[in-house]
């Protein structure tokens, strides 16, 4: 009865939230208040279980790629939208898809899970598989230091009932697997030196200090053989697989490797690598990771910056470094100190910086050789100014933004469905 009420009230709130153009986590929050076991009751009995995808960066992309790989094998996949990676966001997504009895018609749930919430969600229901993308320097204001994230992800990984799949190029994750109690199947995605050739900075993992046991043996998953732009080739046991990534960059290639590895693990002998490669290749960019927004006759590529690693990856993979970019950041980034840790030299010029952190960015750029045209705290005025500029040069623009400013600017551009990015 409580479950029915949670779904009904959740749906009503969802309609109201959509009319306001925001508040995607509110329906889920209310459903969880009405029925605290909401997630267990709705997600706990799927045929292939629940997959947690967590880590500092690449969660949304990996979630999308895993879902695509599994759909390519004719599985019905439930997934949460980009950014809705805490219990209330996941519950909101369930409300959007479940019937009134709270039943999902899916075979498997692929859930992007915030680093801090994997161990909390695991108290409601155990994940079948846990996929870990990386441990990078991220949200220090919240996590203080990468070691704490390590502990959180370790606890999430311990809760996996079947397997843990990691990005094996990350030293912290290799050490983490060493601490898992046996027996636990741990599978590592790796990359050859050749594939790493054009990415001398590697996957930008947080440094690892101290002694590591690395006692558990890692099963070998997908091995990245080569990477050329957005084309990646893998060895998956005896089979070679080639696919198109959703964007350029080693981070995307490792994310896709995780998706191939996990899909093979779930499907076993029924797994079709070619179908998975096709499914991944057809996957569009996750929103905020290079999507092209159209507004007032111009196109603006939106690149999200969360932390130094994602910013570096964004800069390395920028389509057109010649374009004069727009940088937007507000206090949704509580501590912008890290902007001094990235080398912004790939940006040739900045047309405008906006948001309440615009002065931090302006100061950062003043200690570089990058030309800055305008500092405009107001997002609305910055959008107008940037669009005018793009029209005058007849070019596509690039917006590099934090999550909160991305939501503000998307809304200003008329993108009202913030859950799906449509």
């Amino acid at each position: 009865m409580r479950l029915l009420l949670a779904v009904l009230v959740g749906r009503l709130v969802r309609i109201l939230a959509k009319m306001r153009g925001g508040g995607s986590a509110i329906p889920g929050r209310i459903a969880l208040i009405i029925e605290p076991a909401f997630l267990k009751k709705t997600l706990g009995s799927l045929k292939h279980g629940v997959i947690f995808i967590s880590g500092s960066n690449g969660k949304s992309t990996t979630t999308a790629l895993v879902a695509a790989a599994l759909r390519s094998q004719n599985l019905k996949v439930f997934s949460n939208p980009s950014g809705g990676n805490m219990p209330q966001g996941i519950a909101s997504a369930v409300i959007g898809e479940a019937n009134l009895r709270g039943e999902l018609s899916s075979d498997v749930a692929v859930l992007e899970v915030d680093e801090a919430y994997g161990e909390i969600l695991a108290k409601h229901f155990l994940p079948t598989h846990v996929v870990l993308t990386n441990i990078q320097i991220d949200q220090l204001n919240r996590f203080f230091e990468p070691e704490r994230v390590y502990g959180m992800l370790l606890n999430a990984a311990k809760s996996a009932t079947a397997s843990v799949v990691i990005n094996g190029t990350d030293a912290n994750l290799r050490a983490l697997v060493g601490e898992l109690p046996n027996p636990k199947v741990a599978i590592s995605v790796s990359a050859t030196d050749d594939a790493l050739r054009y990415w001398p900075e590697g996957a930008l993992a947080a440094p690892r200090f101290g002694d590591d046991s690395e006692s558990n043996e890692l099963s070998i998953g997908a091995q990245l053989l080569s990477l050329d732009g957005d084309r990646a080739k893998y060895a998956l046991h005896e089979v070679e697989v080639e696919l198109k990534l959703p964007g350029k960059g080693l981070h995307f290639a490792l994310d896709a490797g995780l998706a191939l590895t996990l899909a093979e693990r779930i499907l076993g002998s029924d797994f079709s690598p070619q179908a998975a490669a096709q499914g991944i290749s057809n996957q569009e960019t996750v929103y905020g990771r290079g999507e092209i927004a159209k507004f007032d006759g111009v196109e603006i590529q939106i690149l999200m910056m969360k932390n130094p690693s994602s910013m570096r990856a964004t800069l390395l993979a920028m389509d057109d470094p010649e374009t004069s970019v727009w940088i937007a950041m507000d206090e949704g980034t509580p501590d912008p100190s890290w902007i001094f840790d990235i080398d912004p030299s790939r940006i040739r010029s900045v047309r405008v910086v906006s948001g309440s952190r615009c002065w931090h960015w302006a100061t950062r750029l003043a200690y570089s050789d990058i030309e800055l045209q305008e500092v405009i705290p107001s997002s609305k005025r910055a959008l107008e100014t940037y669009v005018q500029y793009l029209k005058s040069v007849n070019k596509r623009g690039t917006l590099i933004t934090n999550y909160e400013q991305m939501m503000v600017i998307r809304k200003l551009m008329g993108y009202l469905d913030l859950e799906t990015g449509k």
Partner: protein
Amino acid sequence: MIQILHLCPKQLSLNGETGNLDVIRHRLEWAGFDSELYVFEGGELPKIDFDLVFIGSGAVAGSLTALELLRPIRLQLIEIAQNGASFFSVGLGWEILGHSITDLQGKLTEGLGIYPSQSKKTETRASEECFGYFEGELTTGYANHGSDIELLGDAQPLILLEKGFGNFSSVPAPTHSGEGVRTANLWATRLNGPVLAINPHIADALLVELCSRKALTYFQDAAEGSKADDYARSAREELKARLVR
């Protein structure tokens, strides 16, 4: 030539602290001085007459690794300090250059004994913006730490906070308003990251003292500096306005 020594950047440069060195070197250049940077990552320290020693902050494990890398050159660092070179240290870099660090279990680890301070890890963690004053000038930053630092002898704080957490992670200003430490040539702060970029008045005060010890006159009036400082002033004012709102 101004000789700068950067200690253990691999272990201690978690959150933008290296920006402080960018700021110092740019400001020196704008004022007409050349500088040279030597990075110490372990092993022996070359016999260079250093004018400035810098160390950043990081994770606890990184700081303890750095401490062990620095122990073999402890006496050299003390000699550099006694010869009057400026030290500017941030966060955990400062803590390991202090007298001791006591962890949550009560275990005491000896620091290098350069700064007149000792720290004790706390269960409470401070993680928020703060503002205060350095020599009457508005000073802002982000505090993210989990220890109480006691200043020893007659050492004075570098900054006096009006809002936020300074040397005590467990008790904010105004009860404990002291932030950082300043003796004649040993300066330190716990303000994260590029504190000198956002607070160039501290950078300039440091460089005035550093240069005067070499009988040089540092004066910052370059157009580049003025532009950077206008932006930084706006960043500080925006932060203060938000915190007092």
